[in-house]
Structure formats: C-alpha cells, structure tokens
C-alpha cells in the first residue's frame, strides 16, 4: 500500500432490487427509495438509491480490496447525480496518503462512484491495516 496506488474499479449494477433491498436493510422507508409512482409525484424520474446504501457500498469497496482485517475508521461521502434503476455505478479509488503508526498503516483513500449521468458519490475513507496484515 502506497500513496498514488489505484484500486481496481468495482462495477455495481444499480438494479431496482439493490435500491429497495439497500433501503430496507438500512431501515429507510422513504417512499422515493421503493415506490416509483410516489417518486415521480415528487419530481424524480424513478426511485433512487438512498445515501445509506451508497455509504455501505463505499465501505464494501474498501474492505473488498484491503481484506477482512482492514478497519474502517472514517467514511465521508457527498452525493451528486442520483443512482436510478438500470444504471451502473463504477467505483474507483486512489490512495492519497499512508501514515504508519503503532496500530499499523493507515491509508486515506479518495473514492469516486460515477454513473451514467455523472458523479454519484465522492468520498474519503480512512482505513487501518493492522501491522503484519494483508496488502
């Protein structure tokens, strides 16, 4: 792990099932995340992914790459273009810096999730790999 390292991209098909399953798994029952008719009545073209699901996917992207011993310390995300059904979100990441401390190496990773209409999410994740751990 070193500054400048690019993580392999993760393509996430934004299915209707993912949007609804993510909303319910995060206990978010806002109608815009499961009811297309009510979403349209509110001016949205369709249902869209909730922020908790995006947050979960960003966390998964990082731990998929750094392995199960990786400790997420901070996840900070900002949403832009919504994730609507039928789109694909491509997550990419770049290690911005690595600090070595008693707990292991702590990396700051910049994450971007782009979909067909723009940038869905930009974020920064801080993750610690215990000393002697993987990657």
């Amino acid at each position, binding site marked *: 792990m070193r500054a400048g390292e690019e993580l392999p991209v993760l393509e996430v098909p934004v299915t209707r099932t993912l949007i609804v399953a993510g909303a319910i798994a995060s206990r*978010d029952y806002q109608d815009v995340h499961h009811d297309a008719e009510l979403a349209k009545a509110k001016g949205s073209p369709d249902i869209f992914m909730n922020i908790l699901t995006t*947050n979960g996917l960003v966390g998964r992207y990082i731990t998929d790459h750094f392995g199960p011993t990786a400790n997420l310390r901070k996840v900070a995300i900002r949403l832009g273009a919504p994730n609507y059904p039928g789109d694909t979100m*491509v997550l990419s990441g770049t290690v911005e810096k690595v600090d070595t401390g008693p707990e292991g190496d702590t990396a700051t990773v910049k994450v971007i999730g782009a979909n067909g209409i723009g940038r869905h999410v930009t974020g920064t994740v801080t993750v610690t790999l215990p000393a002697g751990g993987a990657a």
Partner: protein
Amino acid sequence: MNAVRDIAYEELKAFEGRAAAEAGLGKDPVNAPMIRHWCEAMGDTNPAYAGADPVAPPTMLQAWTMGGLSGHQGRSEAYDDLFALLDGAGYTAVVATDCEQEYVRELRPGDEITFDAVIESVSERKTTKLGAGHFVTTRMDVRAGGEPAGTHRFRILKYAPVRRTPKGERPRPVINRDNAGFWEGVAAHRLLIQRCDGCGGLRFPWLPGCNACGSPEWDTVEASGEGTVFSYVVMHHPPFPAFDPPYAVGLVELAEGVRIVSNIIGVPHDKVRIGMPVRLVFQRVAEEWELPLFRALGDGAGGEV
C-alpha cells in the same frame, strides 16, 4: 405546491446548537440478522461480518438509529419545529447530500444503541439544481452499552422542488429491413457490426451491401464494447425538448476499427477529449427502447453533479 417564502436567516440560525435527538434508543440491539440482511443487499461477503461472532459493518452505524416504519424515537421538538418552519415556507422536499462517519469501536450482536444529536448548522438559502433550499447539518453521537461507538454527521437539503416542464420524447430510431438486426442486437445488449461475406470487411452503420466489394452477403460480429473517442462535438444549440444541453456527442472508434456516433457519458461535457478510452453501456431512454452509449473511463471521468 405552496408558494415559497423567504425565512429570515436569524430565525433559522437560532436552531443551531439545539438538540435534534435526545436520549434516542436503537429499536433493536445490534443483531446478526440485520447484519446479514445488510450484507446480502450490499453484496458484501467480508467474513468478519459473518459466522458465529460477527462484527457489524461499520457503515451500518446510522442504520441502528433508524426509526423504520413506526417512526423516530427521541427526535427533539427543535428538530420538528425546524422542519415545520421549512415545510411551511415551501421547502417541502428533502434529499440527503453528505454523510460523514467516524468509528470508535466495533459493534457486535447484543450491543444496545443509544444516541444524541445536535443541529450543527443551518445554511443560508442556496440555489441548487433541485431547487432553492437550506442545508441542515446534524451531528449524532452513537453509543453502545453507554460507551462511545461513533459519530455520524449528516447533511440534508430541505428544498422547494423546481417544477420541471415535461420533457419531449427522444427521437425514435427509424427501423427498417436494412437495420432491424442492429436494433434487435441493442435490445439484447449486443452491439452488432456487419461483416462482409465477400471481402471480410467490417462496416458500420448498417448498409444492405458492401461499399468496398459490392457484395450483398453479410453476417455480424459483436463489438467488445471497448473504444476511444475519435472526435466529438459539444451541443449547445439548437435546444430540443428531449435533450439537456450542453452535452457531448462523440464519434467513437470501436476496438474492431469501425466508428459509431453516440453520447459520451460519465464525464462533464467539457472534459471529453480525443483519444479518451470509453466503454459501451446500454441505457434505457424510453419505456420500450434502449440506446448504446459510451462511458468515459479513467482520468477526468466522473461527471458533473
């Protein structure tokens, strides 16, 4: 929709520092079934979240505090008053824009979740693509068994939705005997290129005969989907109801060598460049048909918010 009225900023500012939630109690202690449902939804196969002694994915932090269908507990009067004030002024819609979480300790099944939250800031009136509104930032301290487990800062936009004029329908392709196979391919998510039986040359767009050797016999090959921008224009004018200018129209050279005109997406219109690698995607543009578009890859990709 009610007419939108301005709220004196001092009136909103007065909410800063007031409690958004007091002595909130998670509806369920941290538990393995909710962890499993989360991991199934996210496609997260991290073994640390499974098995006999799982930890919860840290990004579930907020999920443990959610009210669910039966509503929130512990939400403060100040928070309700702020929402009522914004709703009453016409800022009726809400969208989450930011989430910043810091994790202090792991959460495991059995941990009882409690939380307090404070209204950190209310912004001045901002104009956004969605409509004008105010950003409200709250900060929540989450505890497990009374010990700090993490902090969760959350920003939402309370806004008055912009009334959008109905968009026109995208022009429909003219499908005839000579190109029907191409559109059947698109419907099946395959970008098909014609290959001449006479000389073996690839051609696109579809034609009834070969423009090199004249042979009317052909079959098809499926494009890999990889390509590069050979040339492009950015459309500003004339406007057409189905399109939202400015947008980039590219001439994409496919890996197979033929070129196709399509939209370049996933990148701001002014960041499209000749030579930029792109990849084929199929996007539904109407109830019953899709189009092959090209998503920018690599540096500069991402797009506008």
